[in-house]
C-alpha cells in the first residue's frame, strides 16, 4: 500500500487504465485556489 493517493492528471490516460484494469474512475474536481 502507498502512503498517499497516486492521482492521475490526464483523463485519457485514466480511462485507458480503467479499461485495462476493469475499474471505474474517481474524477475529483478540486479548488485550485
Amino acid at each position, binding site marked *: *500500500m*502507498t*502512503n*498517499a*493517493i*497516486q*492521482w*492521475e*492528471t*490526464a*483523463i485519457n490516460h*485514466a*480511462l485507458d*487504465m*480503467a*479499461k485495462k*484494469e*476493469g*475499474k*471505474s*474512475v*474517481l*474524477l*475529483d*474536481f*478540486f*479548488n*485550485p485556489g
Partner: protein
Amino acid sequence: MDAVTYPDPAVIDFISEALIPLRVPSDDKPLSEDFNVKWTPTLITLGPDGKEHHRTVGFLEPKELIARLLLGEGKYFFDSDKFPEALKTFEKILTDYKNTDAVPEAIYLRGVSQYKNTGDALPLKAAYEILSKDFPGGEWTKRAYPYRLIG
C-alpha cells in the same frame, strides 16, 4: 478533503485498490464545462467509457467518502446491467458502512438490483419495509413508497 479525508489510511487503501483516481482543477476546460462543475469538491464516478454514473458535491469524512464511492461503483455496475456485482457492492455498504448516510440509497438500490436480477418484485417491497422502519420520512423511503402495494 486534503487535510482530513484523503490522508486517511482506509481511504488511501480503498481508492488505490478499487478505482483509478484522477484529479483536475475545477477551472480545467473543457473538462469542467463538459461535466458542468460549479463547486468544489465535486467527485464523479466515471465508467471506463467516460460516462458519469454518480456525483457528490461537498466535504465528506473518510467513512462517508468510501460509502459514497461504493455507491458510485454499484451504480456503475447497475447501469452496465451487472446486477450481481451491483448487489455485492450495495451489500458491502450495508454491512461495512452501516452508519453512513449512503445506507438508505443502498437499501433502495439493493432492492431494485434484486428485482432487475431475478424479475421478482418482492425485494422492492422488502426495501420499502426496511426503509419505512429504519428511515421513516426519509427521501428514499418516499421514493420506495409505491412498492408497499406489491404482492
